[in-house]
Structures are given as C-alpha cells and as structure tokens.
C-alpha cells in the first residue's frame, strides 16, 4: 500500500495505457471475470450485422464515435453489441410506454438521421465530417425528445435511449474502463485499503493532473 496525495485541485485526470493488460495477466482477476472481459474484447466486428441494414449499421457506428470519442477504436464493437442485442430480441426489462419497441425505435431513428442528413447536407450521415455530425445529433436531440412521435420522424426519447445504450456498451468495454482508471475487476483476493487517497499496488495511478 502507498499513500499518495494528489496535487490540488484535480479537475482532469487520465490513466496510463496497458494497466488492463497487466491486470488480466495477473493473479487478481477471477476466471469468470477474465472470460467475460476477453470475450468483450474479442467481440466480432467482421461479421455482417444481423439486425441492421448495412447502411444503418454504418450510421450507428458513426453515432457511437460522436457520442464517446475516446471509444473510436472500439465503436465497431459497440455497434455490434447493440446489433446482437436487437437481433436476439433481448432488452433491459422496460421501455417508455410512449416509445415503440426497441428495434422499431432504432430503425426509425437511425433512418431519420440519414434522411435529415441527405436533406440538409446532400450526403448520408456517415459521410459527414465530425462537426456536421455533432450538429445533426444536436438537432436530433432537440426535435426528437418530445413526448410522442413528432412530425420530425424521430420516436420520442430516441436520442436519450440511443445515447444511454451506446455509453453503457462503451464503458462496459475493458478499454474504456482502463481509460477511467477502473480496477474493480481485479478484486482477488480482496481489497484491504479503503482509505481516501490510499491505493493498493495494483490500482492504476493517474498520469497527470491538470489544474482548472
């Protein structure tokens, strides 16, 4: 155990790459946890989507990049996780009463993003540059989060639901967990140090702190 006092005040931190690999190769991750994390890392991105049309799937991938830019390298995996869930017909146990089924909602919403993109910019969403894509998503958020299906064509709450699922998938990926310095998966045999500012050897240290 080491006691470390970070310089004050902390407003922004980042963590070194490679901590996850060290943890996965070490003695602190259980077999079940290792299987789950390695399977997620190995999420296939080469197979054809099962639920989405290819063009819609491309739009979803681009949306993922805009929502979680740090996850750009795994956005194909995130999109594949969502595609697999919808193809399997599983869900999270509930949906807003004023929304269509998850699958219909995704199809309607992503289709509408492309239609808006073609109308406004004469190109599908996937071919726009990042700034234009952000503007488009802000527009989708603005006109789409209404309590019913609006003439906008977006299902109510589509933006919120899409954003939450993308973010949940992204931060369930070990790469993003490494980005935030998470070491909770390395819980064997136990955590003994719970004191503020006191870390155990296997917990990643922040690389730098910036003063805001």
């Amino acid at each position, binding site marked *: 155990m080491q006691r470390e006092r970070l310089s004050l005040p*902390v407003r922004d931190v*980042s963590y070194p790459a490679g901590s996850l690999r060290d943890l996965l190769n070490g003695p602190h991750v259980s077999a079940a946890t290792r299987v789950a994390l390695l399977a997620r890392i190995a999420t296939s991105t080469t197979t054809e989507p099962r639920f989405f049309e290819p063009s819609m799937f491309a739009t979803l991938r681009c949306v993922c990049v805009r929502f979680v830019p740090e996850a750009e390298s795994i956005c194909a995996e995130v999109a594949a996780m969502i595609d697999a869930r919808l193809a399997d017909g599983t869900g999270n146990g509930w949906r807003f009463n004023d929304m269509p089924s998850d699958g219909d909602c995704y199809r309607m919403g992503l289709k509408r993003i492309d239609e808006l993109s073609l109308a406004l910019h004469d190109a599908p969403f996937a071919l726009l540059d990042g700034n234009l894509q952000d503007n488009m998503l802000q527009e989708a958020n603005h006109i789409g989060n209404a309590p019913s299906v609006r003439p906008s064509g977006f299902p109510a709450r589509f933006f919120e639901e899409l954003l939450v699922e993308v973010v949940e998938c992204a931060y369930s990926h070990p790469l993003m967990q490494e980005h935030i310095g998470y070491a909770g998966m390395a819980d064997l045999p136990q955590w003994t140090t719970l004191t503020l500012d006191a*870390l155990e050897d296997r917990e990643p240290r922040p690389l730098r702190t910036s003063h805001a």
Partner: protein
Amino acid sequence: MREETANGGRKYAAEDLVDAVVVGTGAGGAPIIARLARAGLRVVGLEAGAHWNPAVDFATDERAQSKLFWTDERLSAGADPLAFGNNNSGIGVGGSTLHYTPFVPRAQPDDFLLNTEFGVGRDWPLTHADLEPYYDELEAFLGVSGPSSYPWGPPRQTDYPLAPLPLNGPAQLMTRGCDALGIRTSPAANAALSAAYFSPGVGWRAACTNRGFCQAGCSTGAKASMDVTFIPVALAAGAELRTESFVTGFEFDRSGRLCGVVYQTARGEARQRCSNVFLCAGAIETPRLLLLNSIANSSGQIGRNFMAHTGLQVWGRFDEDVRPYKGIPGALISEDMHRPVGASFVGGYLLQSIGVMPVTYASQVTRGRGLWGDALTTHMRGYNHTAGINILGECLPSDTNFLELSDETDARGLRKPRVHFTNGENERALTTHAERIMRDIWHAAGAYDVWAYPRNAHIMGTCRMGTDASDAVVDPFGRAFDITNLWVSDNSTFPSALSANPALTIMAIALRTADHFLARAARREA
C-alpha cells in the same frame, strides 16, 4: 449453474399432493420455503430463473451480470416512468437479493403508523412489535454487520452479531460533510459479513472481500442473498426447488380453492398438485399473475397503490482519490431526516453514502445530464474521484399510480404489465428538502461539480394487506381474502412504503406468515 437446473433431483410427481407450492425464491419466498420444510411439510419452490453457483458463474463485470435482472419487458408510463431491470427486480434462485445492496435498516415503529401520525397514507395492520422478534432472528441468521450502538429508533433487544463493515471512500467523505453540519451518522447495517460467520443449517460463510459489487452479484457468499442462506436450509430440510419454471396459472377445486399450479418449462407446460400456494413473485409479477388469471380481486385493489421509494442520488467530485468501486457500497447511514423538524411533507427519509460501479455511473450521468462527446469522456475520467449520497424516502399511495395489463404480449404470449408512476406533491417536497441537505453535505465535504439524479427505487403495494376485505387483497398475515389457501408474501403487500429498504422487512413478514400458517395447520384450520 447448479444441478437442480437440470431438474435431476425431482422429488414429487405432478400428481403428488404437496403441502405448499411457493412461487418465487427471493426475500418473500425463500424464508417460507425454509420455514415450512423445517416444519416437515412437503414444499416445492418454483423459480423462473437459474440456480447459479456464484463462485464459478459470477464475473466482476456489470454487463455479464445482467443475467441477474428480470428483463421481460415492462411498459413504464406516467410523468416519472420507472426503470426496471437492474433497478427493481431479480431472476434466479434468490430473486432480487442476488443484486440487493444489502443495506438492511429496520423500519421504525412510526413507519407502520403513517396515517395515525399524519392523517394521510395508510397504517399497517401489524406493528413494529410484531416484527421485532423476526428482525432479531433474521439479523442473527443472516449475519448482519452493524454498529454496537445505533442512534435512531427504539433500543435494540439484541446486538448486531458482527461489527460494521469498513467505511469506504464515499462513507468517509459523507462523514466529513455531516460532521461539519451537525448531522449524526453511523456505520450502516449491512447483510454482508465483516468476519467469517456460522449459521445453523448453512455452515460457515467467509468474510466480505470489499469487492463493492453487491448490486451485480456476490461471488464470495459473504452477502446474505437467499441462495446462500435460506435456500440451503430449505434444501437440507427436504424442500424441492424447480428452476426455469415460470408460473402462468392455477387449478381450482369445486369449492373455489386452489388445488394446483401450472407453469412453463423448457420442455413444455407442467403442473403440481398442492394444498396451498404462496405467491412471492414481487410487486409486478405477483399482481400480474393474479390479473392474468382474474382471481383474488373482489376488492378491485390488485395493481393499485403502487409505490416506489423516493431515491434521489447526489454525486460530487473530490480532490481525493475515492475509488468508488471498493468496499460495501452503502457503508454509512443517517436517519436524522426520518422525521425532519419543520418539514412540509409527510414522513421522511434516510441518507446513505454510495459507491458506484462504472457502467452504472456512466449510464446515470448520461441520462441525468445528457453528457456526450468530449464532455462525457472528460467527466468519466474523473470516475475515481466520485462519491454519492442516496436517499430512501416515503412514497404515498396514489390513485394515479398503478399497474395494469397492457394489450401488448410478450414472448410467452402473456400480456405485458404497464406501470403508471408519477411522484406526487409529497414526494416532490421531500425530494427538494433532501437535495438541499445532500448538496450541503457534499459542499461541506469539499465536493465540486455536484449534481442530482432524481430516481425512484423499490416497488411496493400492488396487493396491499389490510383488515377489510373490501379495500385490501390479503389479510394481515398475507392470506388472500377471496381464496383461503392462497397467500402472498412479498413487497406487493406493503400498505405504505416505509422509509427503510424493504428486503429485511419482506423477510420478516415472510417468516411471520409462515409461522401463522404453521400455527393454523397445527390447529387444523382450513
């Protein structure tokens, strides 16, 4: 998974007349299965999910552990639509106790007398004194870790059997903030072991390893979920457990009493003859099953009086390295706001420090603040400096909050439940009061970037108990007024919400129901 999943050990044939079929193996069902089996009765427990072997099957990974959540779709309506799934219902042997925190304060005496105290809401047809011996028994059996002296409520008859679990980062910060404001705190009672513990019929369970993952399944057995406590007792006493068994209907004799249970399995429909049915499927599936079968509803109360605790969470950022993934998540409690002086609302709330798992936090900050892009990823890099405070507060029953069957059907062809929920004036006033206190605590503790996430948690009240058959579904012991050999034991029978987490009280009521049933049987009452 454990072997019962294969139903290899079938003990009773469909035509055997068993004394009781218990539907559901969570906090309401498992204690009854164990109690009746120990008394020598022939008991079959039916569970919709699997019987996991946590040491082998549970990963420290939120997504992999979503297998513990009830994910059959529910439709959420009203102005404050409720999230289900990870929040409110579990599946598998142990039910929601597989993913409860396990924060187990007792309800206080005045919680059961809300109408007497305030003239609104509902009194319970039982008292704290009725439940106290069961609270004592449960804390000793489960191995609850708690403080040597507890500042709130009536004096305890017994000590907690184990010392409290250590305070993690969020608990240390909340202590600091509360101390500065003169708010009393205490290490909380948690049904997880601060030291190795022996329970009769269970054996030794190892101490908690502070892995902070209670809400996604305990892999060590330190947390007192039903699968590692009452279920081993039940099996040792001869109860039969059938997993992957989803109950859809009942059979009746000529007098209108239940004489069998119908359920679906992977191999098709199955039946079990029985003398009594205990319905313990929770505040959604219990009323749903009764409504689907159009039974036990002469009062018209099934599905009504739906309640969900006010559960505001306030998050803050700290310069300290908090590491909110370590330690029992709800390590600290304050009940100073149980009946706040000068409050403009009915009832009160408790305060609880909370750690948080990363996907859960990312999901909340996205839904709650709408963060995306660089704003989101920058915020998330501060995860290790995050701590939360949660409340658990009163929720009054309302005519506009109820469960009904929708016209949409699920994969089984059964109508999906639709739940209407809107926080009323009282819930909003309580939450406003709490948010001010919680922000004050965090600012006093040195937090910045403080933000509030409104939510409701714990579902209750859709088959309420009472003394009058015209306005309640079950009597004070859980027996249905309309069908004398149908019993309900779960959060659906709560007449009011109680400002305490429900699990311990659900178990206490379950044991009381079982004892009452056994006493009646001893007297040979029908």
